[in-house]
């Protein structure tokens, strides 16, 4: 900042650091993996209505200043006139017990051993070729500093996952090292195997066509972020990629979707977005109606609305976050639970599916907010009971999120389970929708 005081009208620096300690489980082997001292710096500067961008992996002020000077020489016109000026209190979400556990290799190792041994304690494990998982503790920090603003967030979390035959996985996110969280981590290998029934159900056996489908919260989040998100963002509206207007009815009137950076325990909980604009908790779909676009400073300015704190350096393809431009993205997704439990929703299905994973969702047609994907993880339901797992690679599910003329969209008829699940970044129930299957 000081080095460039006379050379730029405003300067923004975003600094990320991360340390990670984990134990990978590969069948019976347990192997440690550690990562320390990774630093990433994203730099932007404004001069005369032009925006300059650079990125480094060093804390050396001189190298960062040199990078930004090079960028200023080829800066391009921008709608941004200044960077954020907020100074919210720092957010430190670090559980001391979790920190102590992270720094105790024996304790983390014993969790990984328990995860593995729980899996192999089940007789069916002997017939499984591929079991893998991991237990890890990571600590991340992010600082956004501008001439007039500053925000910092530091958090630590435990994460564990287990996958059986690449066909079913279970994931645990724990911001606190509570006894319940540790028990869940120890049991995640066992849970993954128990979640993979022996019986395989083909499309011919159950029958296909339009079916009621319960989307697992992880899959529901993936579909919303991949196929719907673009329609809700200010930059899409500015580019003509979203025809939505505030007030449009886009979903069942019982359905609300919240965008929130204020949910404790989620990784989306932060005082600001990646350009220092404070976020909030706001309904982007409220009782079925679209309330308004969300976005970064530049795209909101282009639409003539106040920035909403949705400017994130979300990487695409091979970009690291510090090299990614600021993009409009949703923060944490929150959908409140419904009246019926997951079990009651299953019991209400004569013939249907529970979907956990779709292959190739990244290829969704964002322009049409639609997808057509192969199922790799899911269960068949008949007469209100779970019948077995869907034959791998044999099922396809497709849907369009928004209505098209008289044809209802996936969101047009939707029910929610009472239970919600944290996906790490979001908190969602199971969503009961109707999809075309074959």
């Amino acid at each position: 900042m000081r080095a460039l005081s006379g050379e730029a009208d405003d300067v923004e620096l975003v600094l990320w650091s991360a340390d990670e300690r984990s134990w990978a489980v590969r069948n019976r082997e347990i192997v440690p993996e550690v990562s320390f001292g990774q630093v990433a710096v994203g730099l932007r500067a404004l001069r005369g209505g032009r925006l300059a961008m650079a990125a480094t992996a060093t804390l050396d002020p001189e190298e960062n200043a040199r990078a930004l000077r090079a960028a200023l020489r080829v800066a391009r016109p921008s709608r941004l006139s200044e960077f954020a000026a907020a100074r919210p209190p720092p957010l430190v979400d670090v559980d001391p017990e979790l920190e102590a556990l992270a720094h105790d290799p024996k304790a983390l190792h014993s969790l990984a051993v328990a995860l593995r041994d729980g899996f192999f304690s089940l007789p069916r494990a002997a017939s499984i070729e591929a079991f893998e998982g991991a237990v890890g503790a990571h600590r991340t920090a992010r600082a956004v500093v501008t001439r007039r603003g500053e925000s910092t967030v530091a958090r630590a979390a435990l994460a564990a996952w287990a996958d059986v035959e690449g066909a079913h996985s279970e994931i645990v996110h724990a911001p606190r090292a509570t006894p319940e969280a540790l028990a869940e981590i120890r049991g995640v290998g066992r849970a993954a195997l128990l979640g993979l029934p022996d019986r395989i159900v083909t499309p011919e056996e159950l029958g296909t066509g339009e079916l009621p489908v319960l989307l697992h919260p992880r899959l529901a989040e993936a579909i919303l972020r991949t196929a719907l998100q673009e329609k809700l963002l200010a930059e899409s509206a500015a580019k003509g990629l979203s025809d939505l207007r505030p007030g449009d009815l886009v979903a069942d009137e019982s359905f609300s979707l919240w965008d929130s950076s204020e949910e404790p325990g989620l990784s989306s909980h932060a005082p600001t977005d990646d350009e220092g604009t404070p976020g909030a908790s706001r309904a982007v779909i409220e009782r079925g109606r679209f309330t308004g676009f969300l976005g970064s400073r530049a795209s909101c300015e282009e639409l003539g609305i106040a920035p909403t704190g949705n400017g994130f350096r979300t990487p695409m393809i091979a970009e690291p976050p510090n090299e990614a431009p600021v993009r409009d993205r949703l923060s944490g997704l929150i959908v409140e639970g419904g009246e019926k439990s997951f079990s009651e929703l299953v019991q209400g299905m004569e013939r249907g599916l529970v979907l956990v994973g779709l292959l190739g969702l990244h290829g969704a047609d964002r322009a049409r907010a639609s997808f057509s994907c192969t199922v790799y993880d899911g269960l068949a339901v008949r007469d209100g009971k779970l019948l077995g797992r869907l034959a791998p690679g044999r099922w396809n599910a497709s849907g369009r999120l928004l209505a098209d003329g008289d044809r209802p969209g996936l969101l047009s008829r939707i029910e929610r389970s009472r239970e919600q699940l944290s996906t790490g970044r979001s908190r969602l129930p199971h969503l009961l929708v109707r999809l075309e299957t074959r």
Partner: protein
Amino acid sequence: MSAISTSREPLALERESELRELAGALLAFVRPKVAYADLLIERVRKAEYQRLPGGRELVKPYAARGAMTVRLVDAKGRALDASFGLRPFAELRPGLEEALSSLWLQEERPGFGLAEVPNRDRVRYGLKGEVDPSSPDLTASFDALAREVAALDEGLSASSGLAVETELWCYAQVEEKLVQDTEGLVKTQTLPQTFLQLLARAKDPRSGRLTQQRTRLGDIRAISWLFEGGPGGGLRADFREKIGGAGRAAVGLQRARALSSEELGRLTHLVLAPSAMVFVHEAEGHNFEADLIKEGQSGLFTPDGAPRAKPFGAPVVDVWDGPALRPDGSFAEGEGFGSHFIDDEGVEVKPVRLVERGEIVAKLHDRETAHHFREAPNGRGFSELGQRRLVRMTNTYLHPAAGAPWLDGLERLCEGIAFGVYLEGSMGGAVSKEGMSTTVQLGRVIRDGRLTDELLLPGNLTVRALGSLKGIEAFAGPLRCDDPGFCGKGQMKTVTDGGPLTRLRKTEDVTLGF
């Protein structure tokens, strides 16, 4: 591109003495404590340009990143990978000590070992190509590119009556790596890379209907590769044709339709363009990665390394990973977006024939899996910037087996097909143990042996791994393996996939949906 400084060897690393000093200090510290250690240091310098809808531009003339991964192996086969940012040794030492304490907690692994690195004495590998953040050449190249794309959009908008606009993303970078070990191995590689992605969108102002098509170019070349004799000479004609093709396809999609269920039931054949060949990467390539084989995750091999099917595919087909095989039998060394000269363990990258006449004949190895299966290493251990090294693909392609039908062109390939589809382009794929899935970007109906002008919307192509090559009947046109992509396996790795135009009989292992 500016010339490399003449004060050092052409393929020397930019800060080589500093990096080798850091590597030496680190290896000297761990040498008394472990049986073996090796490390990989990677640095990337990149310049980047984006042109967004509405003409907004983002230019990033300088982005740099670097990291290292250190592998520690003790006498009882316990091993770990530790990742570090590029910091002075004194700052790395506490992390190394913590890594060592984790290493010794591990259970003994008596079967663990690493295959020897062949050709240990050769140090230098790579191609020249510099990204100089102070050079005006790069931004001139980016600007020239943007002008050409804007002109193509303008022409297409005028001729189609639609609003055609193309998003453009281009970067040029140099990636350097240094591999050293406690037994005196030193190898370096310097590799340029240029990547261009275009997303053409066509919007009908009357209906508001929006269609799009993506295309990519990429190779291990400096950015001058895109132009005829430099930015002043304009884009290479073949690249201009490919870029223009994306816009034309986006326009064409406005009148495209989906196949009905009845039509899908009647399909007898699929003809795949090289750009729709992502199944070769997903359904073949991944299943040949020996780390996945060892861990029981391959759909084509049992964990002991035996093929699950024999024969696996039709006898007309071979599958290769590596530089493309030329008609004269040589390999296009130094070409291909997925190419490297050495992998991230210092092993030279060899072309590997994975399938010969439909039979599985080889695997892709890093040093650990080569030792595990008692086979020769072939240079497929790669890391994404400081992460653990995994077995990865490079350029993976179908090739006609000796004596296979290799016809003159697409028209010949369509002959005899009662009702089929010709598919082009892919939005990337995803794989599970059983098979793969991709969204193809565009299709055309083949009816009564002729390719028609009936265009098809993007569709979902699913291929089951074990049956993926059974229906292959014939090939046409030149081998193309120049569709660049980024393969995710927890880490990103540059790759390509392709083959000649390929005719595939519709079997129960291949499914198309809309």
